[in-house]
C-alpha cells in the first residue's frame, strides 16, 4: 500500500540535485570550472532520472510494487526537467545563444546531434504525460509513443560516451544499467508469453504437472 506522503517526498528529493548545484554556484564550491560542473551535472541527473523512471515498471512487475507506476510519470517529467536545464546551460553558457554556431554544432558534432535528437524525442513524451493526452490518443497509441523512451535512453548513453575523451568506464556503467532495465522487460514478456502458452497445455494433461 502506498503511503500518501510518498509522492510529495519523492518530489522534494528530486529537486535536491538542482538545489545542490544552485548552492554550489552561490558558494563557489563547484571547483575551478563551475560552468562545466553544472552543465555536466545536470546532464548526468537527466540520465539518472531517465533510468530511475525506467526502473518503475520492473519494480511493479518483479517486486509487485504497484505504487511504482504512480511515481513513473513524475520521475519521467523530472528527467525532462533536468534535460531541459542541461540543454539550457549548453545554449547559454557554452554557445551564448549564437544560433548559427549552434546549428553548425548540431549538424557537425555527433555527440551534440545525438543529444539533441534524444531531447527532441523527450518533448512529445513530456507533453503527453497527462490523463487528457492518454484519453485523446487512446491507451494503445499512447503506449506505443511512450516506448520511444527506450531509444531515448540509448541515445542519451551514446551522447555521454561520445563526449568522453578516453575513460569510458562511467558511460559503460550507464549502458549496463540501461541494458539490464530493458532486458528485464524482454524477460517479463517472454515469461508472460510462455505462461500464456502453458495454460492450455496444463488443461490437457493435468496429471503431468506439479501444481
Amino acid at each position, binding site marked *: 500500500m502506498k503511503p500518501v506522503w510518498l509522492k510529495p517526498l519523492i518530489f522534494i528529493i528530486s529537486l535536491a540535485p538542482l538545489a545542490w548545484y544552485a548552492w554550489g554556484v552561490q558558494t563557489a564550491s563547484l*571547483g575551478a570550472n563551475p560552468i562545466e560542473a553544472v552543465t555536466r551535472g545536470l546532464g548526468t541527473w537527466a540520465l539518472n532520472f531517465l533510468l530511475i523512471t525506467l526502473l518503475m515498471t520492473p519494480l511493479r512487475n518483479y517486486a509487485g510494487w504497484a505504487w511504482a507506476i504512480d511515481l513513473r510519470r513524475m520521475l519521467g517529467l523530472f528527467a525532462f526537467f533536468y534535460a531541459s536545464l542541461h540543454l539550457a546551460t549548453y545554449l547559454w553558457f557554452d554557445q551564448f545563444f549564437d544560433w548559427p554556431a549552434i546549428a553548425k554544432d548540431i549538424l557537425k558534432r555527433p*555527440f551534440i546531434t545525438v543529444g539533441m535528437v534524444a531531447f527532441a524525442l523527450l518533448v512529445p513524451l513530456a507533453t503527453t504525460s497527462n490523463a487528457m493526452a492518454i484519453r485523446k490518443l487512446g491507451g494503445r497509441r499512447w503506449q506505443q509513443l511512450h516506448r520511444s523512451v527506450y531509444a531515448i535512453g540509448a541515445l542519451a548513453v551514446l551522447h555521454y560516451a561520445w563526449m568522453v575523451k578516453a575513460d569510458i568506464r562511467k558511460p559503460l556503467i550507464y549502458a549496463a544499467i540501461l541494458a539490464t532495465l530493458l532486458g528485464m522487460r524482454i524477460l517479463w514478456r517472454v515469461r508472460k508469453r510462455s505462461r500464456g502458452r502453458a495454460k492450455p497445455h496444463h488443461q490437457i494433461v493435468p496429471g503431468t504437472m506439479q501444481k
Partner: protein
Amino acid sequence: MRIFHASDIVPSDITPRTLYERRREFLRLSTGIVLAGVLPAAQAKLGPGKASALSTTESPTPLQAVTSYNNFYEFGTEKEDPAQNAHTLRVRPWTVSIEGLVKKSKMLDIEDILKLVPLEERIYRLRCVEGWSMVIPWLGFPVASLLKQVEPLGSAKYVEFITAVQPETMPGVSRGVLDWPYNEGLRLDEAMHPLSIIAVGLYGDVLPNQNGAPLRLVVPWKYGFKSGKSIVKIRFTDRQPNTSWMKAAPQEYGFYSNVNPEVDHPRWSQATERRIGEFRKRKTLPFNGYAAQVGHLYSGMDLRKYF
C-alpha cells in the same frame, strides 16, 4: 652547439644581494617547518626566478585553480583526482636519463638539474585540447639547456619525453586508459625553441605533484597534453614518436597538436575556449597566441594534415 660560459652571466642575472640574504630567511623558515614535521626539506621555496620577456602580461589563473583542476591520468581521469591522489608520488630520489641518438647518454639527478641554469619565471597561456585555458606562472628553464647536456647525433630529428610510472603511487596506471608510460614528443627544432621550457615550479614555488613534479615539459603553443608531467627519460630519435594519445585515438590526436582554432577536434570545436575563472568564452588564437614566435617552424606545412 652553444655552451653557456661564466661570461654569459650578465650582472642582472645574478640574484640581488637583498634577495640573496632573504634566501637564508627561507631556509630558516623551512627548517622550522621541517622540524615541525610538516614539509620535507625539498619543499623550500624555489623562486621567484628572473623575469622573462617571453612572459604574457595577462593575469595568472589563481593558484587554487591551477592546482585543483588537472589532467594527470596516472592519478585518475577526473579533474580533481590528481589533487587528491598525487601527494603519494615519490619525487626524490629522481633521475632523468637522456639517451637515444646521442654520442654519450647521460643520467642526471634532479638536484643537479635544478642547478644547471638560473631559473626563470615564464608566465604562459595553457590551452587544453578539451576547450579550457589558464595562465600559469611557471618556474623553469629552456628545454635547450637540458638537451645541451648531451651531444645529439646528426641523425637525431625528434625528441621523445617519457614520464614516470609508479604503480604503487599511481592508481590510474593499473587501467589501460592510455598506453603507459605516457610519452610525448617534439621535433628537435620545436624542443630547442626558446619558448619550450622544463618547469620545476609554479607561482615561485616547487612544482606541486599534481602539476607534474619534480619536472615537466611546457610547450605553450601546443595543446596541454603535449607537455608531459614527471619526466624520467628523454630520448633522441630519427623517427617521429608514436605518442600515447596518438595510440589511443590517431584520428583525434596528431603528433603536432598545435593550438589551432581552424582545425577542430573531430568531436568538438576548437574555435573558442573558456579561460578558467571567466564567464564568457574567448576566441582561441592560432598557436595559442604564439604565432609570431613559432609560426615559421611550420611554414609550408598543411596544418590540417599535420594536426
